């Protein structure tokens, strides 16, 4: 058996209250590595076309990776996936914290939750043995209260994942939270967990994970920790975390502001890292084996009310700050804490509320429609709307179905400023005059997310008007960045501290005994990328090129102010980007992988689906 893994698939059937353990296939380790790779591979086998995202046949999948918890810096990531209730296609997300290694030490490389429990439960996984606790008394509880309660009942050594009221009430962008502030936020994985009547998952693992060469793993890990902590980027970045980038983003016109109407926020210094450190942060907080703890625990404040919370990190600052026209970091932190306790994805929540503010200010929706006046800059109104969304009150119930659904329902042309791709709300980068970043969003497998390819620096470095090399760069990033999600570790030592990503190859043999080159690893990522594309093709009727379109705003309007004022690409230019991308990918003009590409990648089992 290939070492470095927990060893098993743990299948939990909530309808039958049964569980079964089977070995993880050895071939999966070689072909998919783990984490995101296992999620995608299992998704294909387990979730059939026609499945209702909120029905018993959808499955919630969770997977650590071979690097999880294994001495190298920042190796605490847990990946999870499901058929997304937000997009109807392949959905996944990941979180840091400590539960990933706990799951691996419980002997689990892939957790499959299927069926629906008859009453609310907490699933308890103790070294792989599954029991259930009645969660009815705290089914409606907030995330923080639920995690605290279970820690008190079970013990501090347990690692807990929870959902909040947003998931319970069917908001399609509800997240799963862990460690009082770490979220798997995107694509509604929390909503799927709620649909199965699972309020929480508690994990304890005490088993050893056998390594191929523990001594070498430790030596490589020590070397990496030392390298990370000596990087100038480490000492400059770590005190502030991701808010460090706020001034740069605004100066480049890429900080989403007032529902992506512009990319420059006046008063951006009130949202930057030093301001947050001075006004919000009380203590740093990190994940398993992390040398660069980027989590910042502190308090948000809104009109004298305080709210403890972790963060906000850059994405939340962008979506809950500038995109709502708010430039008070304490208020942004308060809104972030509000989203966290309710179990809302702060990216999607900020996006849909910004859309409602633009609808109000432009007269498409009234205060009577929305339950209150919704003006940019009004943090009280935003906080109240987050509660309405999470509890399904008034217009909040409509917003809770996502910006695509809300705009379709309201109509009146508001669809043109509904900022999403494939139904997933766009995250923290205004990309209308940044072709590689725009293409990153257009082609991201889960929808409008930055995590697969963050290419805006490449646009600035190589010319924002220039298309040459942009598709190549996006594809390279779409292979490198998700590779970390398959390995079960965080990208930040590369992206932030400046480590060479190829240095991660050094761990694969000492941990698993498998021989991989850097190119071999990238081939795994390409395999997974094509597989997730095929999953959405199989599940979404008519899926193809039209799903890769940017929101109309990005190809119809320029900014009024900032370094890219008046500039945007045309719809034809966006299609030109797609042509270049599909050709390089070996996909047809509709953006579907060709049979020979699937065969080249060892995805023969997908070929039959091309004839659907």
């Amino acid at each position, binding site marked *: 058996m290939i070492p470095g893994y927990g060893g098993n698939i743990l299948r939990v059937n909530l309808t039958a209250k049964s569980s079964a353990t089977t070995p993880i296939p050895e071939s999966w380790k070689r072909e998919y590595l783990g984490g995101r790779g296992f999620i995608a591979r299992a998704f294909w086998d387990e979730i059939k076309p026609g499945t209702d995202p909120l029905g018993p046949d959808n499955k919630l999948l969770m997977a650590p990776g071979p690097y999880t918890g294994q001495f190298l810096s920042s190796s605490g990531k847990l990946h999870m996936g499901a058929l997304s209730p937000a997009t109807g296609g392949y959905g996944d997300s990941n979180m840091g914290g400590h539960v990933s290694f706990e799951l691996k030490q419980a002997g689990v490389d892939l957790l499959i939750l299927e069926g629906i429990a008859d009453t609310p439960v907490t699933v308890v996984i103790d070294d792989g043995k599954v029991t259930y606790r009645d969660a009815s008394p705290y089914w409606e509880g907030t995330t923080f209260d639920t995690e605290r309660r279970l820690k008190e009942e079970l013990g501090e050594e347990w690692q807990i994942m929870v959902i909040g009221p947003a998931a319970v009430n069917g908001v399609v962008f509800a997240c799963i939270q862990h460690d009082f502030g770490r979220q798997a936020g995107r694509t509604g994985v929390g909503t799927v967990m709620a649909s199965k009547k699972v309020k929480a998952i508690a994990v304890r693992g005490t088993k050893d994970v056998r390594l191929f060469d523990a001594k070498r793993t430790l030596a490589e890990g020590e070397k990496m920790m030392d390298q990370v902590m000596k990087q100038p*980027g480490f*000492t*400059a970045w770590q005190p502030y975390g*991701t808010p460090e980038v706020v001034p740069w983003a605004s100066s480049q016109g890429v900080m989403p502001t007032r529902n992506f109407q512009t990319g420059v926020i006046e008063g951006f210094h009130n949202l930057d890292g030093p301001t947050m450190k001075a006004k919000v942060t009380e203590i740093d907080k990190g994940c398993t084996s992390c040398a660069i703890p980027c989590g910042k625990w502190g308090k948000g404040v809104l009109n004298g009310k305080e709210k403890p919370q972790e963060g906000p990190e850059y994405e939340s600052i962008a979506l809950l700050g500038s995109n709502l026209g708010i430039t008070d970091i304490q208020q942004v932190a308060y809104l972030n804490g509000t989203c966290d306790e309710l179990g809302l994805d702060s990216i999607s929540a900020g996006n849909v509320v910004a859309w409602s503010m633009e609808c109000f200010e432009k007269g498409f929706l009234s205060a009577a429609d929305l339950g209150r006046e919704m003006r940019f800059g009004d943090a009280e109104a935003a906080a109240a709307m987050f509660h309405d969304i999470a509890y399904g009150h008034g217009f909040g119930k409509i917003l809770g179905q996502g910006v695509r659904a809300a705009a379709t329902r309201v109509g009146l042309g508001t669809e043109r400023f509904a900022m999403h791709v494939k139904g997933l709300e766009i995250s923290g980068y205004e990309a209308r005059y940044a072709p590689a970043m725009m293409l990153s969003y257009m082609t991201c497998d889960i929808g409008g997310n930055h995590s697969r390819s963050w290419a805006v620096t*490449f646009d600035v*470095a190589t010319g924002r008007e220039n298309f040459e090399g942009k598709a190549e760069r996006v594809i390279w990033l779409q292979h490198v960045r998700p590779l970390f999600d398959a390995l079960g570790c965080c990208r930040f030592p590369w992206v932030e*501290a*400046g480590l060479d990503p190829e240095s991660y190859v050094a761990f694969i043999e000492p941990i698993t005994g498998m021989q991989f080159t850097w190119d071999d690893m990238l081939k795994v990522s390409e395999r997974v990328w094509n597989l997730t594309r095929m999953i959405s093709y199989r599940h979404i009727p008519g899926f193809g090129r039209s799903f890769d379109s940017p929101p109309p705003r990005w190809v119809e309007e320029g900014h009024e102010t900032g370094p890219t004022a008046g500039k945007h690409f045309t719809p034809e230019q966006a299609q030109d980007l797609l042509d270049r991308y599909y050709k390089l990918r070996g996909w047809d003009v509709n953006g579907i992988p060709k049979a020979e590409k699937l065969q080249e990648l060892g995805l023969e089992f997908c070929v039959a689906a091309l004839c659907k």
Partner: protein
Amino acid sequence: MQVTLRLEGHLREFFPALNAPQTVVLDGPKTVAEILEAVGMPPTLPSSVLCGRVRVPLDHVPASGDELVLLSPLAGG
């Protein structure tokens, strides 16, 4: 006079010629922005510039022998 440039993160990928710390010879005092332009880098590309481990603005004029560390902008998780 001369200064040393040290690139971090993605900047190394974009400017492979500057992958290892490079000494740049100047014909006199220059601002950080002027030095970056001289090596072909848009001055607004780095998210921060450190001189002696302290952040400095683009109009800062380094002394001869200083090392400038250029930090790449970062992405959220």
